């Protein structure tokens, strides 16, 4: 049985009290998740017990460290159902992965007249890199608009696609609206005109099973820190064919075969795309995070956080002074809202007083804020350790905020 209370007890931060002496109700999971003891232990064990650089030394503890590091690659491959270990590249996060694909893959081929499609709900991390590449190369950035409900306008997408479309970059789940996009549809349509697809799975990874083969996408990125794992590490999935044809994501130690003054030949996949010393403790911690998620079951997590989302929407919608942003067909993991007369930062400050951590602001999604015609929202985003009681406490607090600012 899925038991959020038992799960919560594995996260040491919840044993602490906030400075006000109350329990922490953490509802900023879309920004980063808390870390279970087994992830923290995996990091500590590495640093205390077998710290060494990987892929190089033939001595203990270097061999042990390399084994643990590469074991994570296998875990990731299975977790996202990649075809082979060659398709799993470690990065320092979602943003890093996207930037590197823009630099190494898109930039060298992007020319005036080409088009790149993003959505109006993108996080800046999956928007600005493509935009800047288009500006530099004289290509055009197109944006799939949202309908009134906050869904992608799929019809408009179909119209945007044409033979000039080089790439489509889409979030799996919007970090500010919780809208889940139809990745298979978007990918199939893009492929039909010969465009490649990058999926930003930053939000998806901790809420739903990722199956890159079922989606059919060409690239996919996520960060470990949103999956109960450490900061500073992420994954770039790329189809083997693309990863082996494209130039390396960056250059340095560990990704070469032979270096002379005149030229360099590069290592085989995946080493080719991993220059320099990786975030070793981070990768090992990511492995522990995947073990943790697998031990609970991603399907069970999905059911839980979606049920919380539905419950929260139902509750919030009874408070008249609250506006819930978006009313999409498929929403999961979070709710974005506004309280009449109260600035989002004041709302989050009042909730913070009660130990309720939510996020106020533009959520790195300014184009979406422009669409919503607000400067920011209050975002309540769920994780496996949250409960209906947490939502009830948010409702109480929101009612008080409303009354105070009324």
């Amino acid at each position, binding site marked *: 049985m899925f038991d959020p209370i038992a799960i919560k007890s594995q996260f040491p931060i919840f044993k602490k009290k906030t400075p*006000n002496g109350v329990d922490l109700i953490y509802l900023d999971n879309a920004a980063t998740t808390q870390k279970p003891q087994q992830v923290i232990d995996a990091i500590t064990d590495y640093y205390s017990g077998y710290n060494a650089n990987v892929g190089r030394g033939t001595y203990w503890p270097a061999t042990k460290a390399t084994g643990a590091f590469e074991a994570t690659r296998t875990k990731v491959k299975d977790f996202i159902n990649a075809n082979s270990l060659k398709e799993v590249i470690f990065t320092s996060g979602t943003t890093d992965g996207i930037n590197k694909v823009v630099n190494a893959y898109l930039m060298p081929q992007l020319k005036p007249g080409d088009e790149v499609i993003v959505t109006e709900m993108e996080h800046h991390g999956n928007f600005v890199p493509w935009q800047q590449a288009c500006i530099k190369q004289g290509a055009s950035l197109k944006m799939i608009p949202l309908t009134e409900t906050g869904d992608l306008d799929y019809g408009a997408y179909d119209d945007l696609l044409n033979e000039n479309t080089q790439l489509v970059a889409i979030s799996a789940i919007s970090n500010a609206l919780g809208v889940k996009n139809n990745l298979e549809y978007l990918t199939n349509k893009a492929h039909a005109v010969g465009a490649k697809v990058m999926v930003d799975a930053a939000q998806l990874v901790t809420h739903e099973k990722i199956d890159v083969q079922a989606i059919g996408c060409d690239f996919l990125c996520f960060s470990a820190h949103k999956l109960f794992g450490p900061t500073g590490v992420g994954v770039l999935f790329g189809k083997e064919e693309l990863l082996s044809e494209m130039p390396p994501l960056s250059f340095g130690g560990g990704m070469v075969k032979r270096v002379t003054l005149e030229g360099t030949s590069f290592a085989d996949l995946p080493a080719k795309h991993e220059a320099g010393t990786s975030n070793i403790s981070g990768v090992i911690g990511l492995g522990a995070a995947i073990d943790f998620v697998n031990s609970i079951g991603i399907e069970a997590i999905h059911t839980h956080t979606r049920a919380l989302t539905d419950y929260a929407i139902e509750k919030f919608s009874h408070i008249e002074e609250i506006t819930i942003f978006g009313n999409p067909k498929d929403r999961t993991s979070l709710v974005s809202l506004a309280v009449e007369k109260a*600035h*989002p*930062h*004041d709302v989050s*400050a*009042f909730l*913070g*007083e*009660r130990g309720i951590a939510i996020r*106020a*602001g*533009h959520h790195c999604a300014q184009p979406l804020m422009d669409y919503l015609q607000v*400067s*920011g929202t209050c975002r309540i985003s769920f994780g496996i350790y949250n409960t209906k009681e947490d939502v009830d406490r948010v409702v109480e607090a929101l009612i*008080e905020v409303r009354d*105070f*600012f009324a």
Partner: protein
Amino acid sequence: MNERLKQLYKTQILTNAEDQTYFKELTEATHILEAYNPMCGDKYTLYLKMVGEKIAEASFKGYGCAISRASTSVLIKNILGKSLQELQAIIEQFMEVINEESEKSPESITADEELLAFAGTREYPERKKCASLSWDELKVNYPSELSAGNSEDLELS
């Protein structure tokens, strides 16, 4: 609701936050500063019109929480008609009011109720930056800004 927080948001702050008197652009501004808190996104543009040594006119526009908006409004109110020298003293006084490490009680620093209202942030380190945002900007940048002017990047912001 927590009484301490209510204290902080007491009428002084809410009233000043809603005060529209100084909330406008100043087209004849001689100096434009931007107070920005990357932590939360709060952002105010401060407009000053210097005539001789004095701040003849001042106003602000922008976006932020009740505390930052109220403190910006109070800032503008307090610097109007002041010389740069006086400005410095006013800023320092305010900083002391909100400084939780100060040995002086807020009441021993000033009797101005509007300024005293922000003393509540002494107990709220997370909100201190809200209270000091625009004051910090003026303190850090007025020597150079007031001599040079700076409206860089403002088109987009």
